[in-house]
């Protein structure tokens, strides 16, 4: 067995090889570790590779899992975890200096559930510091590169997870999505990423950025694997009071092919107007033609407040962040500087030297929006616009089952292309922010390549309608029959 054999694999294929005794978890791990050694010096998708721990775990699984009929669904499958999700005994830095060397004393619920399902934590993936960014250029440990073109960004903030999947360094990964951080990098790297309904996956152990928006999301190379991951990590958790009191997602919620053919797909006209690369619009229009040919109904709809969502988000998210990040004070964990001086000295020195520029910018922005005299003008206004954005979607879903839009208005950009003007970078999330603000699920799927770069298509559904997303995504995946990514790294 070698890596090329795995190019079109899903979890099922690995499990079949395990069951037939043709591959062992330790052998599989060795193949992925070899791949990481070869390509990660170029990509920098990982901040930490858990080589020793992963081998010990694989051995333990092999010893306990001799009876192949009782093996849990992810038995022996390596998974990469974004570095803002707590992993017991494994460093979790959020790609920030302020958490350098921090080793969590507990697992996030999502990680706990993955391990209970037999998965092996292979490592922690790179990201924009505290998930604030759209390119991984804000990582304190250096950016991740796009496997399709090393001169370009992989998207962000879950860029490490997306790049690792595209380069086949790992078959499964977790990301987190506050305003698009799972979907945009998935689009830039040609893989699948889901932002679940707010409350469908526990946030326990996800380091807080903007609590009313943050969600952990599954990322994988195929829709089938994304579904498997989602079944495992979703469902009620008493340790997160915002987690919905429902059972985990079940694939029985996914409509059959014949039901998909009866779907009405809404096209929000605001997502196809000026500012979107025409090649992206063309690629998506091609797909829509295909869907129409298969019997689906395509209907234009309007989400009139789309163009206000971005501004409202950049009020709401930094406001919540400025409050959440107040905890980094040098007292309990992470970096401490100036401990020999006064308490105030310690606060200032720790935070000033621990946070990067974008994080400081957002803390300042959030502190400003929440400060006395400006609260009504900014934060309150942002929250009101959020209501309108949510109502837009509710109205649209009265006349269609799902919406299709581009994930990003642009192709993966070059390093440095958008770093000069922070607002330029913020615009990268213009199509992923509205659904995040409304707390509804959305999935990013590769729908083709233009000049060797993937194009991401976004499917959006109503709350708890992930089944609809998966039904249409499986349908599209089969209809498009695109090769799964396996780019020549460094060519």
């Amino acid at each position: 067995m070698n890596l090329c054999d795995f190019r079109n694999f899903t979890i099922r294929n690995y499990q079949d090889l395990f069951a037939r005794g043709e591959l062992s978890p330790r052998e599989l791990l060795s193949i992925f570790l070899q791949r990481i050694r070869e390509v990660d010096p170029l990509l920098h998708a990982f901040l930490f590779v858990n080589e020793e721990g992963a081998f010990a775990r694989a051995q333990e699984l092999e010893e306990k899992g001799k009876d192949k009929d009782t093996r849990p669904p992810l038995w022996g499958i390596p998974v990469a975890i974004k570095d803002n999700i707590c992993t017991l005994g494994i460093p979790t830095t959020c790609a920030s200096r302020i958490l350098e060397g921090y080793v969590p004393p507990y697992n996030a619920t999502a990680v706990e559930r993955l391990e209970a399902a037999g998965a092996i934590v292979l490592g922690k993936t790179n990201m924009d510091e505290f998930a604030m960014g759209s390119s991984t250029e804000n990582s304190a440990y250096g950016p991740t590169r796009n496997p399709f073109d090393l001169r370009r960004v992989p998207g962000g903030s879950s860029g490490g997870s997306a790049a690792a999947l595209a380069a086949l360094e790992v078959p499964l990964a977790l990301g987190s999505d506050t305003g698009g951080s799972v979907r945009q990098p998935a689009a830039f790297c040609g893989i699948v990423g889901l932002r679940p309904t707010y409350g469908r996956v526990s946030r326990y152990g996800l380091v807080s950025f903007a609590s009313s928006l943050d969600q952990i999301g599954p990322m994988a190379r195929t829709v089938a694997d994304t579904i498997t991951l989602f079944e495992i990590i979703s469902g009620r958790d008493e340790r997160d009071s915002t987690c919905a009191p429902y059972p985990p997602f079940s694939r029985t919620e996914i409509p059959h092919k014949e039901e998909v053919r009866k779907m009405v797909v809404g096209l929000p006209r605001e997502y196809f107007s000026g500012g979107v690369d025409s090649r992206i619009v063309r690629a998506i229009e091609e797909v829509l033609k295909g869907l129409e040919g298969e019997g689906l109904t395509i209907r234009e709809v309007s989400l009139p407040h789309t163009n206000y969502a971005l501004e409202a988000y950049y009020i709401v998210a930094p406001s919540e962040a400025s409050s959440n990040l107040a905890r980094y004070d040098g007292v309990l964990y992470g970096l401490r500087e100036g401990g020999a001086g006064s308490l105030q000295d310690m606060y200032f020195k720790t935070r000033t030297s621990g946070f990067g520029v974008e994080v400081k910018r957002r803390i300042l922005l959030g502190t400003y929006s929440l400060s006395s005299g400006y609260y009504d003008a900014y934060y309150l206004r942002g929250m009101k616009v959020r209501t309108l954005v949510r109502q837009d979607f509710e109205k649209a879903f009265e006349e269609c089952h799902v919406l299709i839009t581009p994930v990003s208005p642009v192709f993966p950009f070059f390093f440095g292309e958008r770093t000069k003007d922070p607002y330029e970078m913020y615009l990268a999330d213009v199509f992923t922010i509205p659904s995040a603000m409304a707390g509804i699920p959305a999935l990013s799927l590769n729908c083709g390549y233009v000049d060797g770069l993937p194009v991401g298509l976004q499917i959006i559904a109503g709350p708890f309608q992930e089944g609809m997303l998966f039904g249409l995504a499986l349908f599209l995946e089969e209809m498009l029959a695109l090769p799964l990514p396996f780019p020549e790294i460094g060519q």
Partner: protein
Amino acid sequence: MSGRVSLEEVRKIAQLAKLSFSEEELTQFFQDISNIIAHFEKLRELDLEHVSPTSHISWSQPPMNPDEPVCWQGSDLVLEHAPHVAGRYFIVPKVVEKEEKLS
């Protein structure tokens, strides 16, 4: 909505956020934040008077949990990774700085 922020305001919010900057850095942040806030002006186009704010999205009734204490076993690990501890205590700089008269 004023739509304008002053350098002095940015200096003040930096203090509130416990961040210190050189004059050069402060000027840069002032410019960045002024530019970003200028975009927020767009929200003035909307009539929001009768719109209720959404602070938190919850598509389901928040669950009620039984009020039962649970003992967490990880406190040793917490102390192990703390920046400065003595025994089972976190050490911080002196909090009370001036001698105060007790009345």
